[in-house]
């Protein structure tokens, strides 16, 4: 029968492919050939078995009767068995209640050590490693002068000694000072037009790595929150609501940029008491 020949051919192909696969592996391996030969080996078996089932064997439809599912049939047996567990007990409800209470409170007590999984957040979400007077450094630890930042340029900076710190990462930008429109209280935070904002997006926490230099907007690639650099990184588009917290900058006597304190607000995405 033709189908039988096809099935035999499939298994033969599969056999050959398996041999080929082993040879390829032993000869040093090749990702593409491993995939193709493995697929052929499996495919041969697949088509072989499926055709065997559907064309070679005689499998007429069978009929099986469903058992009548009389609900409650087994309940009698179950309650009989349950009865046996309380034959000698005088006050069943009390015993059962205490037993379940003991089990439940044990479960709760055993769950308590899950608090060891992590520290209490405390005020950690409200603080970073920036402190007054700490120099701003790039990822290699080099101190930065305002002139080192090109106009329309962007550098990632950290507090000195904590290069690479996830929560303290900041972007340092330089714009022409007359373009700035910062809130009153932050007028002195941008010496020579140097601005520093937290690099952690206030929406979902991705690093805000995209700087649209001409538009002077920071864009977060994850969900496209856009922040206007000139007005204090206020969101102008996208799902973020809080502006990127700003870092107060100053220039020390050697001409290097230092921070004048921590960010203007908690960095990163919002949480329930973020405004406190």
């Amino acid at each position, binding site marked *: 029968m033709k189908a039988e020949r096809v099935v035999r051919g499939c298994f033969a192909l599969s056999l050959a492919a398996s041999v080929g696969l082993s040879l390829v592996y032993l000869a040093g391996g090749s*990702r*593409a050939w491993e*995939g193709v030969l493995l697929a052929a080996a499996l495919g041969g078996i697949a*088509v072989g078995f*499926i*055709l065997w089932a*559907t064309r070679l064997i*005689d499998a*007429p*439809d069978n009929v099986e009767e469903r058992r009548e599912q009389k609900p409650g049939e087994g309940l009698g047996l179950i309650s009989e068995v349950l009865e046996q567990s309380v034959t000698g007990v005088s006050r069943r409800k009390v015993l059962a209640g205490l037993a379940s209470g003991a089990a439940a409170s044990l479960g709760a007590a055993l769950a308590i050590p899950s608090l060891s999984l992590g520290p209490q957040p405390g005020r950690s979400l409200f603080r970073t490693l920036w402190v007054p007077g700490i120099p701003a450094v790039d*990822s290699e630890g080099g101190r930065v002068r305002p002139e*080192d*930042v*090109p*106009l*329309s*340029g*962007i*550098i*990632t900076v950290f507090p000195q000694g904590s290069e690479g710190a996830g929560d303290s990462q900041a972007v340092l930008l330089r714009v022409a000072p007359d373009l700035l429109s910062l809130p009153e209280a932050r007028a002195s935070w941008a010496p020579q037009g140097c601005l520093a904002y937290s690099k952690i997006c206030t929406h979902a926490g991705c*690093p805000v*790595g*995209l*700087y*649209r*230099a*001409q*538009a002077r*907007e920071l*864009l977060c*690639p994850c969900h*496209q929150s*856009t922040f206007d650099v000139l007005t204090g990184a206020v969101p102008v*588009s996208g799902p973020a609501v809080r502006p990127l917290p700003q870092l107060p900058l100053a220039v020390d006597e050697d001409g290097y940029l230092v921070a004048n304190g921590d960010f203007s607000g908690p960095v990163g995405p919002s949480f329930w008491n973020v405004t406190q």
Partner: protein
Amino acid sequence: MLLRSLLAAVVTTIALAAPSLAQQSGRELYERRCASCHGPDGAGREGLGPSLTGAGAAAADYQLRTGRMPLQNPQAQAVRKPSVFSEEETRLLVSFVASLGEGPPIPSVDPGAGDLSSGQSLFIANCAACHGAGGNGGAVGNNAAAPSLYASEPQTMAEAMVSGPGQMPVFGFSEQERSDIIAFISYLQTSEAPGGIDIGGTGPVPEGFVGWFFGLTGLVMVLVLLVGTGSSRAR
């Protein structure tokens, strides 16, 4: 004797005048081809083209060499296309723009001296947010897009870094850092994808499409082909 000194005088005059001659024909070329959008003397024209004062040789060379300038539609982002200027014309225009004010000069480039590993980490830290980890480009909001880097040449890549065209920031890299990044991008351009067919290189989105349409749908289609669509089969 007189002839020789006359000749010397003529040659000297020409040599001294040559740069300004170049600027002259650079200026001519500019007036003909660029001033309609960028204004006389590179002053810029509202709504058409920005001022070129301080743009620098790097910016001009980048824009002209990648064919971005001349730009048909000032509202759209300039994209790479075949350059319309010859090498000589490009040189003339660049030198004219450079004379308009202090701007970044054409940076020197030595991709052979670049370190791949340092280039990779610099690329991820500075470039990947816009251009993608695989250099395939990305949308950067408001109709701007960071282009794919697969057609770029080392010279224009360096010029883009120092001049910050369009929405691209200006990067103050050292020459070594520039060479490192360019070496890495060249590696991306020429290396084969180790995993096989690189379906766009833009991550899980094309992978999901392939998984659904080739993986599951293909699988089910083959199955239906073999098993048939009905519940009973004639024997």
